[in-house]
């Protein structure tokens, strides 16, 4: 009987060995994957086990944490002025996860980032609880407030303000917005209800959409700035005051359709300056048609079109199509047809012109801080591209300044400050049936020649007319307030 007994002994040993191998597979090979499994509640438990670090604007936190009871999540996120800052912070909800800055910088905010490892180890030895670090943003509280309040009076829309010389994002507002505090917890009676109310299917206004970064709008006439830049850069015209070869009316190449201008404006053979001042469709349409799809696309790409931006929060890619025929290129060059841009994209256009042709990479995180405020990582301004030579940029600046001085953008004028801008009204929907978008992009230049701010504003408004004046009338005042806020803040 002993021979089979020995075999049974080996068999039992093999059973245990199989379990040991399986355990090594689970707890060593697969451990990381299982820890990060989407169903693993430990991730959220960890995230809320201690107060999160804060997101900071101008030295003041715009977030906070409160201790909660009756849940396995110890701390809950709170937001100061939540709806105003939501496009910047995103949300961190016990029940619904985290997005945008709250998610991207989660490691720093929870204190789990590898760069905090040494400090955490020290804390563990000295018996202190782990602490989260802070995220210092580039935003300007006064500008953000001006942007948000301006939109609130007007309705749906978005504002982005940049510092042209660095690419710092100064304002990033979207309206209607949401309060991330309202669903930061995990109560089914309050948080889940608040969350569901904000979803697009229950709320046609889609308040959780970050319009500043994630919505692409037809840019309308504001795109003519890009077309003008393309004309200068590709040598089609050499100066602002040279007569262009622009018949009026102009029949688009390859078609029998006339491209109309809005109203009775002096567009025939107008100079670039006059064409921008009155927003001539014929002049800029023909420029697009003359340059062709490839040249237009090249300049648009230099301004950032067709690429997503990571600020580090991702923005959608703006659209300028290729493989278009001359008439489609003409329409695209006046911001119609397929052309579509995020508010961030149009702010980048204004910013590049204001910064003498150099486009800086837009960013909103200035510094990541350890819990004791020591810097861990500081963002350095970075050049993205050079869509214009400094000379051409200055020509374009003088054209945009004329627009504000004598053209469609008069409502953005400011005392003692040189403002350059461009209005736009974009029609959309089938047969232009939906509410048009009123656009305004601009920059402000101080007497010392520095340009501290470039802005893009888009407002969706019932009252917008089909002419360009609505861009000036609805969007420009918001842009002006934002620019004023930045300039006053500098003083």
């Amino acid at each position, binding site marked *: *009987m*002993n*021979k*089979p*007994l*020995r*075999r*049974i*002994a080996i068999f*039992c*040993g093999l*059973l*245990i060995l*199989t*379990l*040991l191998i*399986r*355990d*090594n597979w*689970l*707890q*060593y090979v*697969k*451990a*990381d*994957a*299982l*820890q990060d*499994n989407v*169903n*693993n*509640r*430990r991730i959220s*438990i960890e995230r809320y086990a201690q107060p999160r670090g804060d997101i900071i604007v101008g030295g003041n936190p715009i977030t906070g944490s409160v201790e909660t009871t009756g849940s*396995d999540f110890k701390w809950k996120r709170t937001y100061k002025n939540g709806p105003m800052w939501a496009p910047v912070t995103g949300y961190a909800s016990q029940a619904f996860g985290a997005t945008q800055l709250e998610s991207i910088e989660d490691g720093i905010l929870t204190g789990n980032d590898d760069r905090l490892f040494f400090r955490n180890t020290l804390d563990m030895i000295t018996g202190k609880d782990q602490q989260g670090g802070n995220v210092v943003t580039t935003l300007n509280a006064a500008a953000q407030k001006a942007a948000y309040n301006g939109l609130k009076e007007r309705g749906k829309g978005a504002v982005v303000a940049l510092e042209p010389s660095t690419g710092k994002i100064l304002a990033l507002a979207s309206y209607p917005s949401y309060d991330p505090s309202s669903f930061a917890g995990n109560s089914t009676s309050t948080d889940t209800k608040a969350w569901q109310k904000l979803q697009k299917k229950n709320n046609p206004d889609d308040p959780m959409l970050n319009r500043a970064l994630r919505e692409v709008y037809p840019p309308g006439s504001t795109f003519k700035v890009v077309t003008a830049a393309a004309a200068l850069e590709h040598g089609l015209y050499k100066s602002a005051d040279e007569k262009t070869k622009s018949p009026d009316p102009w029949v688009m190449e390859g078609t029998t359709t006339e491209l109309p201008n809005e109203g009775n404006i002096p567009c025939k053979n107008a100079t670039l300056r006059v064409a921008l001042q009155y927003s001539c469709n014929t002049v800029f349409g023909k420029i697009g048609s003359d340059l062709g799809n490839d040249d237009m696309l090249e300049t648009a790409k230099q301004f950032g079109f067709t690429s997503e931006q990571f600020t580090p929060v991702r923005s959608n890619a703006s659209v300028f199509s290729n493989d278009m025929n001359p008439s489609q290129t003409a329409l695209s060059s006046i911001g119609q047809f397929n052309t579509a841009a995020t508010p961030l994209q149009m702010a980048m256009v204004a910013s590049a012109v204001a910064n003498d042709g150099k486009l800086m990479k837009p960013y909103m995180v200035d510094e990541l801080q350890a819990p004791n405020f020591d810097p861990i990582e500081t963002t350095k301004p970075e050049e993205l591209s050079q869509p214009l030579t400094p000379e051409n940029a200055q020509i374009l600046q003088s054209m945009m300044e004329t627009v504000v001085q004598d053209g469609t953008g008069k409502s953005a004028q400011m005392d003692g400050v040189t403002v350059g801008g461009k209005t736009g009204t974009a029609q959309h929907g089938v047969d232009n049936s939906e509410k048009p978008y009123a656009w305004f992009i601009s920059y402000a230049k101080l007497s010392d020649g520095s340009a501290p701010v470039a802005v893009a504003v888009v407002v969706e408004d019932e009252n917008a007319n089909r002419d360009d004046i609505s861009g000036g009338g609805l969007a420009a005042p918001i842009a002006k307030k934002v620019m004023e806020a930045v300039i006053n803040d500098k003083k």
Partner: protein
Amino acid sequence: MSSTTNSPTHHTSTIGAIGAPSRRNTELALLVFAVVIPVFAYANVGLAINDEVPAGLAGYGLGLGLLAAIGHLVVRKFAPYADPLLLPIATLLNGLGLVVIWRLDQSQRLQQLAENLYGVFSPSAPNQLMYSAVGLALFVVVLVFLKDHRILQRYTYISMVAALVLLLLPLVPGLGADVFGAKIWISVAGFSIQPGEFAKIIIGIFFSGYLMVKRDALALASRRFMGLYLPRGRDLGPIITIWAVSLLILIFENDLGTSLLFFGMFVVMLYVATERTSWIVIGLLMSAAGAVGVASFASHVQARVDAWLDPWSCYKTSGACEQIGQSIMSFGSGGVMGTGLGQGNSDLIGFAANSDFIFSTFGEELGLAGVMAMLLLYGLIIERGVRTALAARDPFGKLFAVGLSGAFALQIFVVAGGVMGLIPLTGMTMPFLAAGGSSVIANWALIGILLRISDTARRPAPAPVSNPDAEMTQVVRP
């Protein structure tokens, strides 16, 4: 005894027969560790959860120490040559089980869950301590009153009837309780009892007694076919009967584990008794056929199999998938070193966290290192059991010891493999660790029986009786 049938290996029957040391002091030294380690673990849990040494530490230490001391003294008096490892390992596992059950009692999540389900939360650790004491009492009873395991041979057929009754009790209406789909419980006077745990031991008596008598017929009367000795048709009777009974358990009690345990135990003992590999082949084929057949008809078993194949695809919709998914994540989140006792989140498993799934808590809080140590401890119990079978001098003792050890091994494999997602989950409990009276009491009895068999095996042979013939020879010599 084995020498009568098996010529080349008969010498092993004399292992340790003469002048073997009793090893009782080794056992005592190991027991000290077996008590001290859980006491430290208990303090560890208290410090981790409440930042203080738990108030009951001294009481717990003394209680576990007292149980261990009683066990040791009884073994010293009534089974002095018994295996020295079994009692300390069982004590250590039982002690650690108590600590982890107490740790899960502290979990707010589980307290909340109990309040939602039953309206009131009652801690499991005090009950488990009481059951452990009862288990040890049964262990003492076995050692004191079972002077020789061969006495059990007399009850071969009574055991069969008793085991079948126990196995079928959960099916009696009004007595059986359906817990999470498996009908393996009965409730008597407010206590939940898992009769299968006791049936495991009792049916071992039947198998051993039966096979001891019939093994020659089952082994010798056979035809050779393709290298295998195939049994005669009529000798297939017993294995088919046991197979049918275990299938009935699987179908009517929805319990793959118990079913596999009984059939596996029988095949192991049949193989040892007859030394015919063909029985293993036949057994594997039959269990495969049975498992596949039942899995394709019983929806409960199907759900378990689906959850085992891919817990993530049905995680949100099926309780079975969530359970196994939670258990696997618990192991994974423990990593190599574990979170430390009291610092994990294995209570997310929720239902049965301290019984069927208690091993997941060990996985998360003690890590790969701790789980491997636990598995090796179980492996040691099993191998000491098989060694006892090797050393035993009578076929009944050999069969009984290997049957109990084999069943223990299968149970470890089925439970640990189930919670680790290696095989489909079954409703059995980890011996000594899991909360539950039946399991801990039955397993203490099992250890008692193994100690009794090993004592008989290792006890020095009685001094040769003086032989008158031999003396006469001496007289003649000069």
